[in-house]
């Protein structure tokens, strides 16, 4: 690799409806082996950004590069094969399918034998999933669901993992366990971009962070710096009024 970032998003303008962008030129980058948090008040456009990178929201202007290669506008279902894994915030497992079938869904871009081989590896990494392989995903606990959601995205060995509020609704213990898993992903060489509502907890496990507000970059820096930065509180508090409008990023 030639010094390119694993993920580089440049001046992204995107939204759900044409002419009504939610992101007004957001930029960010993530390197391999790094966990980066995207934080900000409600309606800042964090979720929209990861959805745009994952191909679910139309990008009207700007560029997304993966290891230097332009992937802007590639249809969503081709991105996993290119190395992008994405775990949405809600509905991130197929509740009516078994765990095994969920993993098979994640292996769609692979050949059948490669997918089955990879599923065995996943089972070794997460033995709880193996024990419940024939259960419907709908019966899993919140923490187990998140693990399955990530495992499903891991099938294609993504170089970039996008996590949208992965710990929302988890108990502190389950959230802690999940953050360990996230660190593990980065240590395995993946670039992780994580949207989090719980800014402090997220920054504690992150290398760097970005603060978004109203669809624009507001701050960025090393996680430790951001944790110490008092401006963050102001951004969150100061924009509370503005945040009364519906959370567009969900």
């Amino acid at each position, binding site marked *: 690799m030639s010094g390119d970032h694993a993920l580089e998003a440049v001046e992204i303008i995107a939204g759900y409806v044409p002419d009504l962008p939610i992101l007004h030129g957001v930029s960010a980058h993530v390197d391999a082996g790094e966990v980066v948090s995207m934080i900000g008040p409600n309606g800042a456009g964090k979720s929209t950004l990861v959805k745009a990178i994952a191909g679910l929201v139309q990008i009207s202007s700007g560029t997304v590069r993966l290891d230097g290669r332009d992937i802007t506008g590639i249809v969503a279902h081709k991105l*996993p094969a290119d190395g992008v894994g994405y775990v*949405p915030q809600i*509905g991130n497992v*197929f*509740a009516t399918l078994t765990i095994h079938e969920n993993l098979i*869904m994640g292996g*769609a871009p692979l050949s059948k034998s490669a997918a089955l081989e990879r599923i065995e590896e996943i089972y070794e990494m997460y033995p709880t999933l193996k024990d419940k392989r024939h259960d419907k995903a709908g019966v899993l606990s919140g923490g187990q669901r998140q693990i399955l959601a990530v495992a499903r*995205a891991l099938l294609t060995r993504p170089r970039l993992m996008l996590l949208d509020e992965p710990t929302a609704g988890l108990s502190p213990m389950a959230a802690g366990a999940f953050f360990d898993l996230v660190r593990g992903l980065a240590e395995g060489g993946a670039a992780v971009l994580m949207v989090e509502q719980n800014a402090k907890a997220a920054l504690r496990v992150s290398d760097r962070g970005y603060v978004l507000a109203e669809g624009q970059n507001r701050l960025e820096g090393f996680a430790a710096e951001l944790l110490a930065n008092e401006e963050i509180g102001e951004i969150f508090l100061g924009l509370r009024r503005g945040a009364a409008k519906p959370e567009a990023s969900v």
Partner: protein
Amino acid sequence: MILQHIADGILSGAIVSLGAIGLSFTMKLLRFANFSHSELLTWGAYGALVFLAFFASFGGFFDRTIGPFSFGVALLLAMICASVVTSIIALVLHRFVFERLSRTAGHMTMVFASFGVALVLRHLVVLIWGSDPIYYSNALQFAILLPGNVRVMPDQVFLLGLTIIVVIALHLFMTRSRTGIAMRGVAENPDLARVSGVNVDRIITWVWIIGASGAAMGGVLYGMTVQLRPELGFSLILPLFAAAILGGAGSLYGAVLGGLIVGLSENLSVMIIPTTYKPAVPFLLILAILYFRPDGIFGERSR
């Protein structure tokens, strides 16, 4: 008497089940009520008529009837060919009408379009084949007397047997093959399927092929056990919708079970209401199920 109604109900329910499978999945995946789906049964039935003449022209082995049945190998081959043709019709309609509208307009526009498509499909059948009833075969059949004084025709036994085989085959497809699993996944959550790397358009193609083939088989079985007429499918619109809505959109077993319930209720209803009002029974079923679940089954999308 009641046993005969039950037997008849299961048999007509089996045809409804075959037709409702496709309707149920297109309702779930494309999120519109397709009023033209039932015309695919008509086209399957009449399509088979053409291929039947073709295969029967080989004579001998092809033309001979099998055992107690009224048909021979020719009709079985014709049914397969009719499924292919019906699938092609469905895919052409999808490509040039429904898919286009789903991108440029709303779901309701697709419903209007399905009105128009239904008109065209149904009346093309009248134009091509006329409006008089047609039969595949004049061969005589002897009813089989079952315990309880229930009479069934050998062809009806075949109808039930084939339906069971199709449902088992579809069950295996939906649980064992990756395409089948993906179909269920897309039905539950299309966006999650997309980001998992599933090509949703390819899955929708499969849904049309399976739905149209099921409809074609249902149509052929209807033609075999009742008769062919241009309103064959049209008269099944409400039973098909009732089955799909009862069973829950996007569910194979739901559609099959729904079809059986519709067939049984229709046939048992004649014990309490005049036969002439039988066609209203599926509608009453629809009202009843929707009364208890006003959002219908679209409402249960697990986000």
